[in-house]
């Protein structure tokens, strides 16, 4: 259990940084958005990991259960954040599509090159 907990946090850190790497190192705008989604997923994972209680079950009352429940609050926050996340990603993709139409490219360096002219 101890190991699994630490492992969850390490995966959170690594996943967060993989996403961040895609955002800062890649020039392709869609790839940047994919990186941002990974980054976001890592944060979701951290929240849900923190809400877990040992021997607990999902916070839904039932007759047969241990009576120990995991924390419902992080779950509520992340549940709404996932849907908000897809909406904002869609907005980002919309902007990328418009950039492609105006500049003919979705590579950051090419767009900056065109802007400088």
């Amino acid at each position, binding site marked *: 259990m101890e190991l699994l907990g630490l492992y969850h946090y390490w995966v959170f850190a690594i996943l967060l940084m993989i996403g961040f790497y895609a955002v800062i190192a*890649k020039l392709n705008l869609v790839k940047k958005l994919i990186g941002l989604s990974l980054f976001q997923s890592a944060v*979701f994972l951290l929240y849900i990991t923190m809400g877990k209680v*040992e021997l607990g079950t999902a916070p839904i009352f*039932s007759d047969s259960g241990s009576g120990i429940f995991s924390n419902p609050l992080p779950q509520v926050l992340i549940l709404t954040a996932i849907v908000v996340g897809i909406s*904002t990603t*869609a907005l980002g993709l*919309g*902007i*990328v599509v418009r950039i*492609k139409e105006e500049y003919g490219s979705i590579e950051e360096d090419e767009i900056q090159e065109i802007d400088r002219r």
Partner: protein
Amino acid sequence: MIVMFGIFLLTLLVITAVAIVRAENLFVAVMLMGIASLLIAANFFILDAADVALTEAAVGAGISTVLFLSALALTSERERAKSPNKVLSFLVVGAAALVLIYATFDKPRFGDPQAPVQTHVAPWYLEKTPEYIDIPNVVTAVLGSFRGYDTLGEVFVVFTAGIGVLFLLGRGRPSERSEVINENEGLRHHLIPRVVGRVLIPFILLFGLYVQFHGEYGPGGGFQAGALIAAAIILFALIEGEQRALRVLPHRLLLGLMSAGPLLYGAVGIAGIVLGGNFLDYSPLASNPIKGQQLGILIIEAGVGITVTGVLLSVFHAFAARGR
């Protein structure tokens, strides 16, 4: 057993994430994102977050993939393979990862019932839900009632993002929209997807409605149901062609749904004031406060579901119309 399974899932997740970033073909990257979402959803389930797992599976593995693919169809599928500051970025990211991992050793033990996060407001929610609201699913109770303001805000963010996409991409030129249905649109000429789709779509819709209206008793609620219903209709649009989907749910109706949800949610809040309570206080809505709370949650969850369905479908059609 669970420990091993968790470690297995998380390791697969990291491998998938590395593959996503390394993939030069963006189509591959998007497909791998779907797998990553499914792995995360399975992991949420292990961590007792059934509601979140349902949402992640419907949104991450379903709708997100479709949106990324429609964006790829409008841009380009290949990434040019050069990152000028690869070494520098790698150093920055590596250093930050080490700091983050160092910080994890100070975190409370995994699953510790005495951790600060478990002893703050969460016990109050668990203790008071039966007394004030009397529904089994505490997540729905917190989402709909105790933290109704948050959820109202989130619904407005979803609504705003939908409006933003429509402003950016429009919804196709009017002349294009009224065209006659092209028989070869979508996957109509492929027999297997059509037959499978025809069997699956009614059940996905039914499941969506179940998740919507059973959210008080089991995992579910407006956010999940909205995503599921939108996924079913997007599947219909992919198989039968976008024009046919627009005949079933025209743009005007989708716009109506988009704005009806937040309005319904806000109206419930104001009804609370009119009937003598506070904004978003559902207790005065019925003769007894518990019944009022349950009624309020049912209505606002419907509002959430309507908004999410409307926004996701409008966004999908906006991308699809741009491609024609």
